Each structure stands twice: as C-alpha cells, then as structure tokens.
C-alpha cells in the first residue's frame, strides 16, 4: 500500500514539475504578452496543484495533508482570478492582440 | 511597591516613550505641546536624579523583565551615560520652549501633534541608547531615534529639506546596518549580546578575523551616524533645512549619542582585547579629528548661509571631541566628554539665537544680517555671547573643555605639542567666522528693505537663560567635569 502511495505521489510530483517547466519555457518563448501570460498561468493553476496533491499523498492522512488540501483550494480560487485580472488590466491599458497577428504575416 | 528610585533607568525611557501614543491623539490648540513639554521636563528631572545616584553610588544596572543579565536585557547607566542623559533631556526641554513660537509658521497647525509625537520618539530613542547595556538594544533604539529625527527634519518649510532628509536617511540606514553587521559578527564569535558579558568573553577570540572586521564595521557605521569627518556629508543640509527648533535639538545631542556608542564600544568592549587597539585610535581616528577641526572650520569661514556655517562648525567641534578621545588618556577623555556637554550648550544657544532671528524676520545669511543688531539688539547680543562660548573665551563653557584638551596634549610630551596647533588654529578660525557675523550685524549699514522686529519676549528669555548657563558652567564647571572625569576613569579602566 505504501509503495503504491509513493509511486502515485512521485508521478504527480514529476507531472507537476513538468507542467511548471513547460509553463516557464512557454513564458520565455512566446512572442507577445497574451500568449506569454497564458503559458505562465498554466504553471500557476495546473502545475502547482499537481505538486501539492503529490505532497499531500506523501503526508498521508494527517493535519498536514488537510492544510495542503486547503492551500490547493485557495490556489484554485486565486491563480485563475489573478490571470484574469492581469489580462483584463492589460486589455484596458491598451495592449491589443490584433497588432501582433499582423506582424506574424509579414515575417 | 518597588522603591521608585530603583526603577529610574527604565523610567527615563518609558516616560517619553509612553507619552508618544497619547500625544498622537491630542489634536487640541497646543495641548500636544504641553504634554510633550511635561514628558520632556519629567525626563530631565529623572536624568538629574540619576546623575546624583551615579555620582554617589557608582554605575546603576537594571534588569528588564527581571531576567538575569546575559539572558534578559540589562540597562546600565554610568557617569558617561548620566552626563549625556542630562544633555539630551536638557536640550529637548529648552528646544521645546523655543519650538512653541518658532513652529507657528513652519509646521501647519493640523500636523503639529504628529510633529510632537515624533519629537517624543526621538527623545526616547536617544535616552534608550544611553541607558541600554545590550548591543542589539542599542540598534533598536538607534533606529527609533533616527526615524523620528528624519520626520522632524522633513518638517522643514523649503523643499530642499526633503532632499536633505533623503540623503540623511540613506546614509543613516547604511550606518545603522554596518553597526548591526559588526554586532552580528561579535555575537557569532562570543555568543552574547550583553556589553559587559561580551567584553569578558572577547579575550579568547580577540585575534580572530571576524572580530577585527566587526571592529571595522562598527567604527565606520557609527562614524557615519556621528558625522565624523569624511562621512559627515549629510549633516550640513540636514541642519540647514530642518525647522530651527529641531536644528537646535539635534545639533546639541544626536551626533554625540552616536559618538557615545562608538566610545562605549571602543573603550568598554574592545579595550585591551583587540590587539593594537591604541594604534587603531591614534593611527586612524586622530588624523580624521585633526582634518575635521581645520578643514570644517575653513569651510565654515567661507560659508554665507548662517545655519550651514554653524553646521560646519559642528563638524569641527565633533573633531575636537574625537581628538580628546583619541589621546587615550584620562585627561584627554575628560576633555572630550566634557566638550560634548559644553558644545551642546554653546551650539544650542547659537541655534536658539538663529530661531529668534528668524522669528524677528531677519534673513538667515551673513550678508542678509547686515545692520540687524540695531533692530534686534538683544538677540544679536546673545548670539555674540554664545559665539564667544563656542570659541572658548575664558569664563565660558567652551573654554573649560578646550583647556583640558590642551592640558591632555601637553601630557603627551613633545608629540602632544604638535597636536596643540590644530586646536589653536581651529579656535582662531572660529574667532574669524563669528567675527564675520558680528561685523555684518553691527557695523554694516542696514538695508532699509526688510523691517526687523525684536524676537518675542518668551523666546528671548529662553535664549538668554541658555547663554546664562553657558557662563555659569564656564565659571563653575564642577558637575560636568566630575561626571566626565569618572566617565573617563570607568572607560579606561573598566575592570577594577
């Protein structure tokens, strides 16, 4: 039973790590603000939650696991909102996506 | 009920400290001023009482929270801190008397209660440093007094006050952080923060590298806070653009408290523990003191702005104090410490005179003062008397410490004679720049454009009482000299 738990948590941790890495890579490589922000928000929401679940499995049934679950819920609520607020603020302050599309054709 | 006498060291700090949250709530006409004045006078009474107890019963120590010394925080008041406690609380009380009138057109009415809260915090910060016997506690109260002093200086009317206080904030914080690094390195090697305990445990680690670097950091950090010569660049602007009452208060005591911490660390903690300690003083700090005396006085000579002139003269006077301390002899230290007291009196009186001149509408520059003596005879007469005390004319407070300084130099033999030169040159230049003001005020023709009126009677009374003190302590200097001598004794021979 313990081994199964360990394997599960390790797979979750590695998956979470992979998502965080791809998010970071995406934020670096994407051409303009919105695509980059999309990649970064991917890290926030999915990557962190997988890692947290992985650790919760490690901790087994205990107060620590409960705390980790509540942190995950908190993150589930806040990171998408933050991404939304950021995009909305960017949109209001005049960063418009059409402009970028045009330059792609010329390349 | 523990006898109140035993609680004096902590009351010295707690009274102004606890008054601050009350004063912030008082928005009445000058209710805030009365509360601040009461707290400052109470602190002055406590410091006089403490000085008597220290004179009779020797150093007083007090354990905060009744925890034994190296584990809890210990307060330690000896002759040196008692003397400076009198200087700090006295300067605060007199400057508050002047502030009552001079602040009317400098700080808007609706923010005066905040100004007086900051004043109380500065006072409790300075007294907190003086009674503290714990290295980290000194850092905490140093931060309180520095932050409060930045607020007081930022109260100045002109916009240059803001740039001046920003520079002072940056340099002051770097100085305090250097001090913190020095204390951290010593704590790393000795494991304790209590000054007495630290001095005892420093023997077996004294020659290790971190202790030497810690000594360097503490000396440089406190040199910035005490405006010792190359690191004094923040002082002229800070004194010039601060409100007049604030300039008088910080000129009289704030740099001297940092000098107190430097001397406390160098003599009490590093005394015979650090190899080559004497060399550190003579080789490193004495040349700085000599340059400070000569160069700062020369700059003061060519300065036109009156407050900036007095600010540079303060840098020179700090050079005198440091010169006295760097002779590492009982007379030298007595001269240095008593000069802290006497310079506070002389420079305080001068800045009070400046406040009176400003209240009378005079333009605060040497050229602007031309002919001011005819319209403001009493203020200018007090300015001249205070100037004499600054120069050190016999019969005034300034003379006493300069006389001891010369005697200390003579004790050093042939080398000492060489040191008398800068002392005399400094005093000579002081005569010149005070003369420049006198000449412009008394003999130059008054330009009809500005109509000067004599300063309000209340401010003149305070000004003349401080000038009177100058003369009194010139003729009858037993109190400061006795405290300075026993302070020098405890610093040089702390263990017997």
């Amino acid at each position: 039973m313990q081994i199964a738990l360990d394997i599960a948590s390790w797979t979750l941790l590695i998956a979470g790590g992979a998502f965080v890495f791809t998010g970071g890579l995406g934020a670096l490589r994407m051409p303009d603000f919105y695509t980059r922000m999309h990649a970064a928000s991917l890290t926030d929401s999915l990557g962190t939650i997988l890692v947290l679940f992985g650790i919760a499995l490690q901790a087994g049934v205990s107060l620590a696991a409960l705390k980790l679950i509540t942190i995950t819920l908190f993150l589930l609520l806040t990171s998408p909102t933050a991404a939304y607020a950021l995009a909305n603020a960017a949109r209001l302050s005049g960063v418009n996506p059409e402009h970028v599309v045009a330059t792609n054709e010329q390349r | 009920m523990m006898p109140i006498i035993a609680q004096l060291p902590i009351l010295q700090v707690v009274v102004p400290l606890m008054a601050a949250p009350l004063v912030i709530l008082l928005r009445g006409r000058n209710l805030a001023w009365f509360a601040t004045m009461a707290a400052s006078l109470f602190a002055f009474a406590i410091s006089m009482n403490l000085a008597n107890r220290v004179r009779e019963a020797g150093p007083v120590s007090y354990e905060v929270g009744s925890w034994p010394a190296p584990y809890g925080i210990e307060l330690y008041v000896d002759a040196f801190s008692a003397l400076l406690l009198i200087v700090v609380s006295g300067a605060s009380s007199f400057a508050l008397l002047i502030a009552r009138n001079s602040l009317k057109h400098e700080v808007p009415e609706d923010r005066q209660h905040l100004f007086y809260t900051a004043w109380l915090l500065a006072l409790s910060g300075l007294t907190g440093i003086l009674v503290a016997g714990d290295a980290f506690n000194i850092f905490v109260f140093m931060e309180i007094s520095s932050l409060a002093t930045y607020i007081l200086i930022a109260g100045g009317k002109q916009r240059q006050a803001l740039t001046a206080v920003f520079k002072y904030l940056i340099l002051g914080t770097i100085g305090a952080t250097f001090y913190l690094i020095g204390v951290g390195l010593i704590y790393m090697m000795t494991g304790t923060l209590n000054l007495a305990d630290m001095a005892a445990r420093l023997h077996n680690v004294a020659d290790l590298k971190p202790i030497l670097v810690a000594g360097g950091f503490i000396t440089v950090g406190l040199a910035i806070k005490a405006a010792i010569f190359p690191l004094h660049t923040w002082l002229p602007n800070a004194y010039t653009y601060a409100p007049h009452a604030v300039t008088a208060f910080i000129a009289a005591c704030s740099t001297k408290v940092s000098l107190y911490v430097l001397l406390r660390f160098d003599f009490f903690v590093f005394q015979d523990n650090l190899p080559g300690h004497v060399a550190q003083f003579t080789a490193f700090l004495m040349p700085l003191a000599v340059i400070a005396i000569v160069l700062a006085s020369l700059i003061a000579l060519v300065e036109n702005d009156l407050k900036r002139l007095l600010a540079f003269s303060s840098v020179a006077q700090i050079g005198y104090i440091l010169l006295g301390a760097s002779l590492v002899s009982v007379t030298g230290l007595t001269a240095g410490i008593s000069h802290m007291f006497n310079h506070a009196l002389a420079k305080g009186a001068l800045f009070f005179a400046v406040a009176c001149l400003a209240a009378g509408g005079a333009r605060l520059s040497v050229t602007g003062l031309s002919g001011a003596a005819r319209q403001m005879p009493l203020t200018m007469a007090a300015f001249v008397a205070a100037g004499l005390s600054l120069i050190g004319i016999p019969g005034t407070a300034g003379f006493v410490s300069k006389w001891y300084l010369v005697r200390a130099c003579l004790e050093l033999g042939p080398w000492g004679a060489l040191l008398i030169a800068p002392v005399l040159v400094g005093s000579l230049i002081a005569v010149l720049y005070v003369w420049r003001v006198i000449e412009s005020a008394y003999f130059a023709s008054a330009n009809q454009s500005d109509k000067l009126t004599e300063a309000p009677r209340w401010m003149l009374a305070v000004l003349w009482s401080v000038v009177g003190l100058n003369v009194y302590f010139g003729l009858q200097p037993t109190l400061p000299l006795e405290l300075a001598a026993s302070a020098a004794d405890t610093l040089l021979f702390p263990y017997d």
Partner: protein
Amino acid sequence: MVVLFGLFLLTLLVITALGIVNADNLFAAVMLMGIFSLQMAAIFFVLDAADVALTEAAVGAGVATMLLLGALALTKDKEKRRRRRRWPAIVIVTVTTLMMIYATFDMPRLGDPQAPVHQHVAPWYLSETPKVIDIPNVVTAILASFRGYDTLGEVFVIFTAGVGVMFILANGSGNGRRTMVPSADSTGLRHHLVPRVVGRLLVPFIVLFGLYVQFHGEYGPGGGFQAGALISAGLILYALVEGEKEALRAIPLSVLVGMIAFGAFLFGAVGVVGMLFGGNFLDYSVLLSNPVAGQHLGIMLVELGVGITVTGVLLTIFHTIAARRKDH
C-alpha cells in the same frame, strides 16, 4: 541536504538581486523584489527559521511590495538609463567584498554545533522556557518575554513609521480632524467583476487566518507582526476590490489612528502594570498569582498590542497613499 537546498536557493537569490539592479523598468524591479523576498523566506525556512520565514514572506514580500507599488503609482516608473562614471563605486564595493571574504575564513561552518553561538546563551533559553514560561514556541517566548524590551522598541519603530508617513504625506488641504474624504471615482475594481466576487469571498478567510496566526503565536510560527501584515493585506484587498469609500466606511481613519495609539500603549501598559505589581518593567510573572500563567497572559496581551499597531499602521499608510493619489 540543507546545504544542497541552500546552495541552489542562494545562487538564485544572487541572480535575482542582479536582475533587480539592472532592471530599468521600476515596475519589473519591484516585482523582482517580491520574488527576492520569497526566495529569502524559502532560505530562512530551510535554515530552520520558521517564524522569520513567515514574517519575511508576509512583511517583506507583501507589505514592502505594496508600499513600493503605491509609491510608483504616485511617481514615474521608468528609470533613466545613463552612462555615469561608476568606477569609484565599483572600487569601494570590491574592496569591502574582499574584506568581508577575508573575514569569513575564521567563521564557524554552517550548522557546526560547536559554534560559540550555540554554547552560551541559547541553551539557557531552550532549557528555561519549558520551566518558566512553558510554551512550545521558544522564539515567541524570547521575543515577548526574555527580550520583550527589544520588541517594545520594535513596536515603536512601526509606530514611528506610521506617524512619519501620516506627517509627511498628510495632504495639507483638509484639516486633520476631518477624515480624508476620497473623491467619487474611487470605485476600485468595480468593473472587474471576477476579482470583485473572488475578493469578497476571500477577504473573511484571510482575516480569519490572520487572527489564527495572531493567537497561535505561542504554539507554532506566528505572532503580532505576521498577523498584522496578514490582516492588513486582507483589508487592503477589500479596499482595492470594493473601493476606497467602502473601506474607509468600514474602518475610518480616526479608528486607525486610535488603533495605532492603543496597540503601542497596551504594550507599554502591560510593562508598567508589571512595575506597579512590584516586578521590574515588562515582568509578566507578577501579573497573576501563578507566575507561568502570568507569563502566558503577558505574552498574549503584548502580541495583541503588536498586532493591533501593525494593522493600524499598514492600513493608515495604504489609505494615506490612496488618498494622496486623488488630490494630485
């Protein structure tokens, strides 16, 4: 294990610091400063300093970033790139760095149990706390009781910062008695629907967590400062989401100034009461008949005073900066 973590995080820290120095866009520098503080908090946690990690995260990353952003909102956030002769700064910096590196060779290694720091004062604290104060978190015991005088000084440092910001930034126009009435358009993020809904949902939980940290200080990492930072962060989120007018209606400025004064006064008063009961200043054992219970009461009251003052000061600073924005 600790060394490996430390190595990786510390190198990251230096890289972030270099990033901050070279960032021309001040907004980017402030964000990097937040990341710098969080890495600092991670390092502190790896080095077994749980309380300090919580404080560095809450106060260092949260409050400092909020202050910097507030200041940037009122000034320009572009730094002028210029060529300046930099060699004097570089010379001084390299000389001091070499002096520092020279000093590190006699220093005890990381985690060396024989280091003098662990021999003299620390063991006494670890052995005495269960007997005299009997609370699990030794850091809070030292902070509030053994070295309570330091913390009193610290509360008055925060108090001075509050007084300073109010004094320097209080707009001269209105007279101080009238609370600063924010102008009409202070509607916060009204038209941002999603953040408003989520914000309104989260604010109570943040404040609840802040209160938990406040009263949990004796048993685990926590205490007045962290709690103050958390509660004020929650209320500032409320102000951002609902708008200045609502926030000032919820906690008017006069109440905030009252909180600042009350918190600092409470801390001092506990000390003075100890003095009246015959002990020295800040001696909690005399507060109650049973000394250990007295210590508990003293520490709890003192931490409460700290929490109230820190919350009051941080909210006042935020409202002063926000009000300032409307006038200019």
